[in-house]
């Protein structure tokens, strides 16, 4: 087994990439027409594959198509029953409960505080550590139309086109209008964006953008923003309880969401949180491995928020559309599925097939680009096969050094260079092998432009909510999304908390939900939320006993 660098079989193919590089530096395949884009999506995008989805049989979005993996969780029974928990013993009594300690949750907490809620009246509950999230992993950048050549209206158009006009217009409008203000806020928090000597931002293109508006911080953009936000929330003293995911939302007898039941993963005890307003910021579903795809997502991305929200009556939307990032690692095996930032293509690296040929415009919207990679590998047989039988296409990263000078990759794509270098591949000299990987939950809990879910007392921001991106998100709009809607949800929750009156706490809604499941004939061996994916080895699992210790 090769554990460092490329095997000879792949090295031979790299020679073909090198041979065509000088020519490819001069010319690129053209962008697809609207018709071509539609066709390739229909034929090759995983969303269009038959037998991968089913209509929901119960609940507020009954009848809507969702992937089987999502339906299995929504059509599942609660982990707890009302008899197990004593709602008269309140462990945390707060104004605003935020479920999720990633970007959206932290932004919501900060803006709830700015809106006048005292730090000690806020609580962030998170399943892993504070900050362990997709937010911290985002590499390429964040969009905001702040250059004179650009405008929120142009940003709006790019988003609607990229999302195939399925987006919720008022959410897109909020996103593009708040964008520059969010970057300014970050600037005041000390986020170290890449800047020119005069203070202007270094801004680049992303897939589907018509203006260069991608702000970045090397290829650690998400980490840099998350670090600063978390640091600021720590300065303010916002309480956080880690390793304590919400396993159920609480309601009151007036039909309002009134907090949550948390589960301490380390001691197995439950905690009752009463809250006048609750913000869902639980992120997405990458760890469900839709259609068996590997994922770029963090360990806790298991769609818990969708399950919780659905049980209290929140609607879902656009859950039939899954984002596969075109460039997940396809080699080495140990990194399969991990993200290769779109910034690599943004800086000039071109996708190339096994013959060394360019076959697609490098910066189509993500769904189109992914479909083109899949067609190249499985439709045309032009993919590169790895020793473990995985297929991928080359991403000709050395072009970046040709275009911008030697040393550019190590400087501006430090995370990528480091990741491959750890496995004996120098992406400044050798191309890297990529294949689409499950990246983002395009849809989610429906919200309005204030981050309200339509259920009294429940707000949502970030990847858990849907409508902003329609059926396909553009690069750089998820970091913006969690900031814009994390903020709006935080502000709305704070305002709601100031006037809300809570009634008697109740878990009746999960009793009702279980009844609905039973009436639909759904077997009760399926439980949700999932909390953590199962990655233990089969050999170990085959011998596991359920002995309580």
């Amino acid at each position, binding site marked *: 087994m090769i554990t460092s660098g490329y095997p000879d079989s792949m090295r031979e193919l790299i020679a073909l990439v090198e041979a065509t590089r000088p020519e490819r530096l001069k010319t690129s395949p053209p962008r697809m027409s609207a018709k071509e884009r539609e066709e390739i999506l229909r034929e090759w995008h995983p969303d269009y594959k038959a037998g991968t989805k089913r209509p929901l049989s119960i609940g507020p979005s009954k009848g809507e198509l969702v992937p089987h993996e999502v339906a299995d969780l929504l059509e599942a029974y609660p982990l707890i029953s009302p008899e197990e928990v004593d709602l008269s013993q309140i462990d945390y009594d707060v104004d605003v409960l935020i479920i999720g300690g990633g970007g959206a949750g932290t932004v919501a907490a900060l803006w709830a505080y700015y809106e006048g809620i005292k730090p000690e009246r806020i609580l962030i509950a998170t399943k*892993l550590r504070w900050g362990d999230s997709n937010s*911290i992993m985002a590499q390429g950048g964040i969009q905001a139309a702040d250059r004179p050549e650009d405008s929120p209206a142009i940003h709006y158009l790019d988003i609607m086109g990229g999302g195939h006009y399925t987006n919720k217009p008022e959410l897109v409008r909020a996103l593009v209008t708040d964008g520059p203000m969010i970057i300014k806020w970050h600037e005041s928090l*000390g986020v170290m964006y890449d800047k020119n000597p005069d203070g202007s931002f270094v801004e680049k293109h992303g897939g589907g953008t018509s203006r260069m508006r991608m702000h970045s911080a090397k290829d650690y953009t998400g980490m840099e923003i998350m670090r600063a936000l978390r640091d600021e929330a720590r300065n303010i003293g916002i309480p956080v309880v880690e390793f304590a995911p919400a396993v159920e939302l609480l309601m009151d007898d007036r039909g309002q969401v009134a907090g949550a039941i948390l589960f301490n993963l380390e001691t197995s005890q439950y905690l009752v949180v009463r809250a006048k307003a609750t913000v869902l910021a639980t992120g997405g579903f990458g760890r469900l491995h839709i259609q068996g795809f590997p994922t770029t997502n963090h360990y806790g991305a298991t769609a818990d928020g969708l399950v919780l929200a659905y049980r209290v009556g929140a609607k879902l939307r656009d859950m039939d559309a899954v984002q596969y990032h075109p460039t997940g690692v396809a080699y080495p095996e140990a990194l399969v599925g991990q993200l290769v930032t779109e910034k690599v293509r943004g800086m000039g690296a071109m996708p190339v097939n096994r013959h060394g040929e360019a076959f697609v415009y490098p910066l189509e919207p993500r769904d189109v680009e992914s479909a083109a990679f899949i067609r190249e590998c499985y439709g045309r047989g032009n993919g590169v096969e790895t020793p473990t039988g995985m297929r991928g296409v080359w991403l000709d990263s050395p072009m970046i050094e040709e275009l911008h000078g030697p040393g550019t990759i190590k400087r501006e794509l430090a995370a990528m260079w480091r990741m491959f270098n750890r496995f004996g591949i120098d992406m400044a000299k050798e191309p890297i092998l990529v294949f689409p990987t499950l990246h983002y939950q395009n849809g989610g809990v429906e919200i309005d432009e204030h981050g309200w879910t339509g259920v009294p007392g429940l707000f949502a921001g970030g990847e858990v909510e849907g409508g902003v991106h329609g059926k396909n998100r553009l690069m750089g709009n998820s970091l913006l999304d969690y900031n814009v809607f994390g903020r709006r949800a935080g502000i709305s929750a704070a305002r709601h908390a100031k006037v809300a009156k809570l009634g008697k706490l109740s878990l009746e809604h999960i009793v009702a939900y279980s009844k609905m499941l039973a009436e639909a004939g759904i077997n009760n061996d399926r439980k949700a939320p999932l909390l953590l994916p199962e990655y233990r080895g089969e050999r170990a699992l085959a011998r596991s006993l359920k002995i309580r210790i």
Partner: protein
Amino acid sequence: MADREAVEQEERTSLAEELGVRIYIMGKEYRVPAGLTIMKAMEYAGYKFIRGAGCRAGFCGACGTVYRKEGEYKLRFAVACQKLVEDGMFLVQLPFAPAPRVSYDLEKLRPTENVLLKLYPELARCVACNTCTKACPQEIPVMDYIQAALRGDIKRVAELSFDCIQCGLCSMRCPADIKHYHVAQLARRLYGRYLAPKAEHLAQRVAEIEAGRFDEELDRLTRMGKEELSKLYEARQIEEGVGV
């Protein structure tokens, strides 16, 4: 009977080949296949992570790992999700670093040459042993940025420490009890807030938005149907620039 034994023998042999790597998780031996990261190898062995796994891609610092290899006296350091297992690795994870940070009000601080030392006076205890650098799974020159902090060079601290994933291994190894990654976080924010030049075009755009300059155009766009929008979309000018 003999046949069955032979088959079993063969199975055992191929299993031993397949599970060719011996690792010791907190001292306990397990056999795992080659080519797995430390994280995946531990899962293969039957461990289900609660702590010690986060982003699984080298960005969050949740899986800081200390290991030693058989026959070596030196400790080595890695993030479990970015390091392949090697035969004879003794492994332990350090999923939490009890390194206290100092709270501050960024608006009241100024990027003076003694601000880092004032908030983290233990910086002055650095004896330049470089143990922090050796512990860094990101291969950041940690000691160099601590030295820059000592002499008040905030910009250099910010730049050298930029790739820090805040796993805390540096601070757990430091004989002087310095909180390297907290010092670095403070320096980066001071740099971003006070020393980096401000973007004028951004301030201008925010003012334009607040003045409602784009409202009318956005009103029109939000009311448009798919057909009209797609016409505009397909006809839009693409700015020349990197990647296009």
